[in-house]
């Protein structure tokens, strides 16, 4: 009996989440389209660019026709939405390829970068946060906190350029660009090559996520260290490393996990800049191109994809938080 009602409750939660997801996607699509329809950027003008003197009015009309821009905006949105329901996101104006293909290609390239950066920022941020909390007020804590504030206020592209000049130009330890060595064909690229080309962009990108995780973990660590059960453990003679490992880590992990999953969105945003600096051909780079050139189908496709990723990230964050910190289980439902 009890089990059944619990299952029903879960089902309802899942249903609610699905409704929320669908309404979110609809809102994102409509909002993005409205913003772009109202944007002063003329896609044909952006496409023509420096060729403006060579492209006459008749040719411009042909371009509009090819992209279907000669229809009124509402009609275009209707047609687009109708196709999306059937799984067709349309054709990118800039790349001349199906949007799903562009996004799949780019997302595959971005995925390793995002995953590495995400792990790096999570593991580093959490570990350093624990250390800072444990050494509160001492030199290590002050250095780490100062470092976190500096990173938090440093723009990603600036950090990227700095790393590029130090490690790629001066020390020549890392390559200056791209996801693989210049001139190699896809079949010839070794795993080591890939990692080598991934290190610097991932490091740059992880900067986005380290500070919040570090600072929140530090705060949580302080709170847990001040709590009764830690005082009790201390009284029983447990020393700091053991305390951190057995008593603090799990309890302080809650906010870190939540933040870490919630940061997926920021990570995607940061990847736009990091990929630009390192000529890393991922989703971020495609986003910049789509936005600058008013490629409506591609930008809408990317907006929907990232909204989905962020939603899933947040849902996973909730889940992980509840698993790690059992107290929240009952409250959340």
């Amino acid at each position, binding site marked *: 009996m009890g089990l059944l009602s619990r299952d029903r409750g879960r089902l309802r939660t899942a249903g609610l989440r699905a409704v929320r997801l669908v309404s979110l996607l609809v809102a994102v699509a409509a909002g993005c389209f409205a913003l772009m329809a109202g944007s002063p950027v003329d896609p044909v003008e952006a496409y023509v660019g420096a060729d403006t003197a060579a492209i006459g009015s008749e040719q*411009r009309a042909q371009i509009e026709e090819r992209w279907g821009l000669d229809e009124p905006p509402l009609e275009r949105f209707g047609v687009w939405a109708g196709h999306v329901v059937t799984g067709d996101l349309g054709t990118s104006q800039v790349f001349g390829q199906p949007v799903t293909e562009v996004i799949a290609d780019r997302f595959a390239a971005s995925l390793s970068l995002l995953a590495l950066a995400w792990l790096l920022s999570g593991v580093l941020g959490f570990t350093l946060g624990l250390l800072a909390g444990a050494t509160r007020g001492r030199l290590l804590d002050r250095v780490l906190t100062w470092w976190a504030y500096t990173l938090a206020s440093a723009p990603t592209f600036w950090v990227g350029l700095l790393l590029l*000049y130090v490690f790629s130009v001066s020390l020549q330890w890392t390559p200056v660009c791209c996801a693989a060595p210049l*001139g190699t064909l896809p079949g010839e690229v070794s795993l080591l090559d890939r990692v080598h080309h991934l290190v610097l962009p991932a490091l740059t990108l992880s900067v986005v996520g380290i500070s919040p995780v570090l600072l929140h973990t530090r705060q949580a660590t302080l709170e847990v260290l001040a709590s009764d059960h830690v005082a009790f453990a201390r009284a029983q003679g447990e020393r700091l490393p053991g305390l951190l490992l057995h008593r603090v880590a799990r309890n302080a992990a809650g906010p870190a996990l939540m933040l870490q999953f919630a940061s997926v969105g920021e990570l995607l945003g940061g990847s736009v800049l990091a990929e630009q600096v390192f*000529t890393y051909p991922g989703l971020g780079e495609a986003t910049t191109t789509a936005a600058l050139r008013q490629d409506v189908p591609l930008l809408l496709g990317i907006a929907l994809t990232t909204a989905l990723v962020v939603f899933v990230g947040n849902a996973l964050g909730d889940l992980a938080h509840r698993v790690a910190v059992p107290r929240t289980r009952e409250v959340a439902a």
Partner: protein
Amino acid sequence: MSRSRLLVLAAVTALTASACGGGTSGEEATAKPTELRLAIGGEPEDGFDPTLGWGRYGSPLFQSTLLTREPDLGVGLDLATAYEVSGDGLTWTVDLRTDAAFTDGEPVTPADVAYTFNTAARQGGLTDVTALDEAVAVDEDTVELRLDEPRSTFVDRLISLGIVPEHAHDDGYAREPVGSGPYRLVDWQQGQQLVVERNDDYYGDLPAFDRLVFAFTDEDATLAAARTGAVDVAALPSSLATGDIGGMRLETVTSIDNRGISFPTVPSGSRRSPAGRPVGNDVTADVAVRRAVNVAIDREALVEGVLEGFGSPATGPVDGAPWYEPDSAIEDADVDAAAALLEEAGWQDADGDGVREKDGTDAAFTLLYPAGDTLRQGLALSVVDMVAPAGVRIETEGVSWDEIDQRLHTDAVLFGWGSHDPTEMYNLYRSSMAGTESFNPGYYRDPVVDRHLDAAMAATDPDEAAEHWRAAQLDDDGHGFTAPADAAWAWLVNLEHTYYVDSCLDLGEPRIEPHGHGWPLTAGIASWRWDC
């Protein structure tokens, strides 16, 4: 923690260091490299389909064209062995060579040429072939291009449109092009790099390099790549071309990539543009003001001060081209002459505030430039200081292109143009183009100039056309749109494009480049040689 990260980095570096040495390191300098690496931008987002505009600058690489642009901007032959324009200018008959083949082994036929032109004429891409009525293959080595109206500048389409094979031109063509050009595509990783290899069956002179790698890096990464020796040619804006890079030389290439000021040439309030925007400016409508500004500007100082020497003074929109009129150049940097011109036209500074006035109107106008373009901002601010002593006050405003589109008929605008195709000159000065796109923004109108421009378009041979183009700038009777006559614009400077090039690489005779930096350099790629 951080120590172990450094260790990993060091290990990775040690393992790959040998692979990253590149073809230009010391120990390999004795053997001629067979691969070139270039970071010159120019990646086409929508692929390598000439009917959508690929190859309109420089060389299409994978395809070949009917005609070519010679280094002096004259016209040379390629797939065509001869061409002829009918007396009425409507029919272009082109004889084709019969020994050219696509990389899939099929011969290049007149049917392919006709297909290419007909397709490009219908496609909404970045090559404007709308003047074409139809292209017809008349026999096994002749094709006829029939136009709607006479257009001498159609020759530019014969120069820039790469011929595609009708049998292989499908949806995937742009990503896997098949053509009859000097190179074939090996791999394109969009956003990163393009790898091409020599087409050994190419009918023309074979290039010296087996393989070319184009890296599509942005400016900072390009500079970094040049510094580390990862590339042999790097296109960089002149503002970043400071300082020496070991093993590379700085090469500057002349261009007709120009910057100039457009003036509204009609009084205000007279009319509205087709888009409903106001037209006219009472100050710049006076030719004396426009001439005075032209005379007062010190163009050499602009080149030295704003371009840091990477450029030349501009006298018109087509400096250095075969259709350029040298007599249109004026003596500038002469504030006294400018003051005299204004004085004569009745502009006097009666109230002593340093700005002349006439009939209660100050000799003052606004100069717009796109915000964020530091080069144009520098030029605009310098011009303000140069004309102020003559008693003309210019206020500058950095605004968005969107706002410029609203105001280009009422305010002066700092534009950048420059094309190998004189159609641009027609678009900028023909009275009928006023109010269309950003063409003829100042509503300039002179019946004599219109006649010269029309005659140039209707000409059936390039030399005859060039003569009329020159007359439109300044004819024997003193009519024309340039500074000595109507001074419809004040042209300021031509930019030089800057490249870091490996000291061993000889780029041959560089061509005058259009507006657009980087890819145009590839126009002469077949003649590049390694000199060490």
